[in-house]
């Protein structure tokens, strides 16, 4: 039996309204203005995935938090678990953007990386 879903694409600010027909393991996407939308819509209709952006605690700097992201997507339903796993992470300068701060979050195969430089910022 096929299931019909209406979704708003989040791949770009355009926010296309997608129609997705899911039949067994196959998803047919329409309404997308670009190929990214087809890929995203097919995944979204079956198992929504998100990149997580948050911050981690900083010690040894005038700055209190360092922005971070996952270097890939994880299941939408696991974001709060991931937040808990990230909570104990504490960094000290120097950290460079792209540095891996935690590996293989929740065993989901994604790493936590810095999205900002943290140099010796003190006064």
């Amino acid at each position, binding site marked *: 039996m096929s299931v019909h879903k209406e*979704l*708003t*694409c*989040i*791949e*770009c*600010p355009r*926010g296309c*309204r997608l129609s997705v027909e899911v039949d067994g393991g196959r998803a047919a996407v329409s309404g997308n*203005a670009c190929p990214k939308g087809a890929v995203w819509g097919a995944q979204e209709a079956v198992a*929504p995935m*998100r*990149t*997580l*952006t*948050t*911050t981690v*605690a900083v010690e040894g700097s005038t*700055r*209190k*938090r360092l*922005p*971070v*992201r996952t270097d890939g997507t994880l299941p*939408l339903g696991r*974001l*709060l678990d991931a*937040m808990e796993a990230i909570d104990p992470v504490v960094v000290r300068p120097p950290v460079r*953007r792209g540095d891996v701060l935690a590996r293989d979050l929740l065993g989901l195969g994604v790493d936590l990386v810095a*999205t*900002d*430089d943290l140099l010796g910022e003190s006064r």
Partner: protein
Amino acid sequence: MIRRLETDVVVLGAGPAGLAAACSAMEAGARVVVVEREERTGGILKQCIHDGFGLLRYGRQLSGPEYALRDADRFGSLGGRAMLEAFVTSAARLEAGGFELACVDRGGAFLLRSAALVLATGCRERTDRQVFVHGDRPAGVFTAGLAQYMINVQGLLPGRRAVILGSGDIGLIMARRMTLEGMEVIGAYEAKPEPSGLSRNLRQCLDDYGIPLTLSSTVTAVHGGRRVEGVTTARVDGAMRPIPGTERELSCDTLVLSVGLIPENELAKSLGVPLDPRTRGPRVDQNMHSLVDGVFACGNAVHVNDLADYVSESGERAGSSAAAYALAGPGSPSRVRRLSPLSAGPGCLYVVPQLLDLAALADVARADDVCLYFRSSSTMASGAVVRLAAGDASGAGGATLLERRYRALRPPEMERIKAAAGSLAVGPARPAEPGPGASLIVEPSKPEDR
């Protein structure tokens, strides 16, 4: 003795607009001084830790800090250095041309002279008083940007249980952010019948977390002594007046406001720069040149943009134009502008630029493509046509200079048209006269087109 500095171009603000302007001015050969009031460059992007920036400019989704670092890297590689924790206290036009700014930084007061000025001062958030939430003022009422600063930069949680007033993008982003940080977000209330934020943010910030958005409803009162204890919401009528009998009491300790942004132009006003009442930013020509010779503006100081990418784009233009102006020197024929109005016609909320410099458009050596940024004044279904017509804002009968068809237009979503200089030949035959102008018109699709 007071410190004195002299340069070709001064850029005020080191956010994405200011750094793009500074870089493009340096690349055009100008000496540049950037004045920034914070201790790091990057502007508001420093606290925008979510991703979604840079798709147009870099072809990938960057977080705010990552986008800001790219600006900082380019600026640094050009040998640029911003004056940090520096503030302009007053600005004056010099009789001989150019500007003198009185500034303060950690080293004390100094005077800064330049031939050209680029205003990249960004915008500010509308506050509770500006949307008529009156009454007591307990702790716990925050603008979305302040809540964002507290959580992402200071590492502080604003409260435990929040209501959001407004549906602007920052409010939506903060609904998600507060939820991830363990706060309970009861719902967002929007007085308008349509959401203000981008569709994708409604999806990934509210729907993902089951946070309800209630349209045509507002917060009419805040309750609490020292701390917010609750708010009253009510439905509003078509004129945005609360409807008696529709009040609901919500228990919360935090009210987050996402009710609009206003370009910051105190300094522009002090220099006599005319503003557009619709955008609340300086009226500019296609080179981001205001009506005061030598004063350029870009980014959210000109109009509130949806995307950082467009902010940077206007900065690039402002910077290269300011450099050309400064390096041309007084009396140069290239400094002579011939301005013709570009108006927001029927169906168009506003258009930037508000002026076309016909002299620059006609100069083959200088004429670049022109970017027109606009918003429609109402939601238009698929097939809406945007037309640039010669003639004034009435749009009656003027020749069509260019025309675009859109899948959909929504006032919260800014649109951009890149037009070849040649297509904007709105000038009269005699160069000495100002042109009759042009206007941008937004028309719904015609039934026969559907």
